[in-house]
């Protein structure tokens, strides 16, 4: 069994009475792209800082290739950080910013210049070398920050909210750039973000954090918090009533619901929660066959940009949410109180163990 590259073993960080990280264990293999995701205050940035050595763990151990590094000072570690606001040195020009890490390692001036030039070319900022960092655009600053971190050719790159400071159109482009960069370099990326879509778009593994703990390290949500945080979801309570070749049948207040089986199916009679993302539910005027269909009435509509959330009142008095585009809604000409049919495919729901 090969030694894992980075192990976070029961890490905790307390600032006085305040608990930033409660108990986090996580292993990262060489070459992975791991995203730490969660709302603000969940401890993800603190975790990143502990890996960089900028904060000392209150409890637990960090191991790099099996060796404990808790006491290693930040400058002895090899985990350059791309800061959220880039932290470029304003009194050094772009080239000297990028050369900084090499200078600290005693690399002679000529070699430094060459390496820095290589990386600047790679990021398309070769012409900016002599400029002051205060005159750059947001995208340029980020590339300088990336070059500065990568010029020392580390085995691990840390990124703190890399996309949050960018304009929306740049964000999307940068996402794919980072993924491409990761593939090219083959080193480990650990990235912190509050955006679900970013995390899932870029990373091979996502650790979802809340209140200083890891809730789930996977693509599928495992508990209620994750389900409610990650996107707009419906949570339907039911009991497993039948298991067959196509999946499970749940008995619920809304009637019988089919869902596809994923992994080990729970036993008959187990109470479960079924998660159905709101954007997987479509609205029909009348029942058709195929899929789960629930009769409901339109309760209210909520408009955010070009997305409309329709709140439906179900027969048993419960609520279902569906998200549709503005165009779809306009085509349907919905009125409040209008009876509709909410439908989703069994493959689109998934189970939460209670």
């Amino acid at each position, binding site marked *: 069994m090969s030694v894992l590259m980075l192990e976070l073993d029961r890490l905790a960080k307390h600032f006085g009475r305040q608990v930033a990280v409660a108990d986090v264990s996580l292993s990262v293999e060489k070459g992975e792209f791991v995203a730490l995701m969660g709302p603000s205050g969940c401890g993800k940035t603190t975790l990143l800082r502990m890996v960089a050595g900028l904060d000392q763990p209150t409890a637990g151990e960090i191991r790099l290739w099996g*060796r*404990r590094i*808790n*006491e*290693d*000072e930040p400058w002895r570690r090899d985990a350059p950080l791309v800061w959220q606001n880039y932290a470029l040195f304003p009194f050094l020009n772009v080239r000297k910013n990028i050369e900084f890490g090499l200078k600290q390692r005693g690399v002679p001036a000529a070699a430094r210049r060459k390496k820095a030039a290589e990386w600047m070319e790679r990021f398309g900022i070769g012409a900016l070398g002599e400029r002051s960092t205060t005159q750059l655009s947001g995208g340029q600053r980020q590339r300088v920050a990336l070059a500065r971190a990568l010029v020392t050719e580390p085995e691990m790159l840390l990124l703190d909210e890399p996309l949050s400071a960018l304009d929306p159109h740049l964000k999307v482009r940068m996402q794919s750039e980072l993924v491409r960069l990761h593939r090219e370099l083959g080193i480990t990326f650990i990235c912190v973000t509050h955006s679900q879509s970013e995390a899932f778009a870029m990373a091979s593994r996502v650790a979802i954090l809340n209140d200083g703990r890891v809730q789930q390290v996977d693509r599928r949500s495992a508990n209620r918090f994750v389900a409610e945080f990650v996107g707009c979801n419906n949570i339907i309570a039911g009991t497993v009533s039948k298991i067959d070749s196509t999946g499970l049948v749940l008995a619920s207040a809304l009637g019988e619901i089919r869902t596809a089986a994923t992994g080990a199916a729970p036993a008959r009679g187990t109470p479960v929660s079924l998660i159905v993302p709101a954007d997987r539910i479509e609205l029909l005027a009348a029942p058709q066959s195929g899929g789960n269909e629930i009769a409901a009435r339109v309760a209210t509509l909520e408009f955010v940009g070009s997305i409309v959330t329709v709140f439906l009142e179900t027969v048993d008095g419960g609520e279902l949410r569906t998200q549709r585009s503005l165009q779809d809604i306009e085509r349907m000409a919905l009125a409040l109180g209008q009876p509709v049919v909410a439908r989703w495919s069994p493959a689109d729901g998934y189970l939460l163990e209670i």
Partner: protein
Amino acid sequence: MRPAALVRREARREAVRFALFWGAPSLVWQSLFFLVPMGFLVAMTFWSVRNFRLTPDFTLANWKFVLGASFFHSAYLYTLELSLLTSAAASIIAFPSAYALAFAVSARLRGLFVSMLLVPFFTSYPVRIYALEIILSPKGVINRTLADVGLAPIHLIGTPTATVIGYLTLALPVVVLLQTLALAGVDRTLVEAAHNLHCSRVRTIASVVLPSARTGLTVSAAFAFVLTFGDYIAPLYLGGSKPPTLSILIADQVKSGNNWPRASVVAVTMIVTLAAALAVMLGLAYRNPKGRS
């Protein structure tokens, strides 16, 4: 591979060394060359002078003597009186100009005037007082002009008025500066709101501008008080040192009387007075206004 414990200890020691290197200078220097002399000053109030030599002692004689002396009482009251008067006068005189600089002048011009107000700070104060002495003297510009016009000369040198004029030279630049900054910081929308609610200019000043700038205005008055209370030059050269102020008393006791313990007593009473006055004035400046619902 260094053992973890050794790494831990070395890392912490280096960090401590770094912190101590930068933290020590201020502490050491200020304690040694400020706290100790000041403490020594207080201690010396209890020493005595025997046969013209300063001897360590513990006696209340100096305190009794100074606090009981009528010349001390009159000097104390005189100094207090003049400083309070100057503080008030400077605040009142400065206000219209500060108001003009804050409200009636562009930001750039204001910056220029503020820089100008910093100039007196870098001139020699004794020389300025000397110049005033000339201007106010019997043969000076003021009296010469009065004589030319046919009026009787004004006798100024050696009077409290001259001392106050000297004090104003010291205090006005600071007070105008601080008041300007305080008034410039008043939220203009509040002023406009008052105007919008039928409040006349003058009433707006009283009910909006002054309360908003209360902290800055009080602090500038406190500054003027502290500066003038301890001044030695103006009362000496313009006021003729009769009656003397506390600072003149101290200088006299030290240089000619050589009675350092008594000088120290006067100094300590000055410090106590200043501390009390500052506590009152800054308390007034920073307390929350009453009547907030």
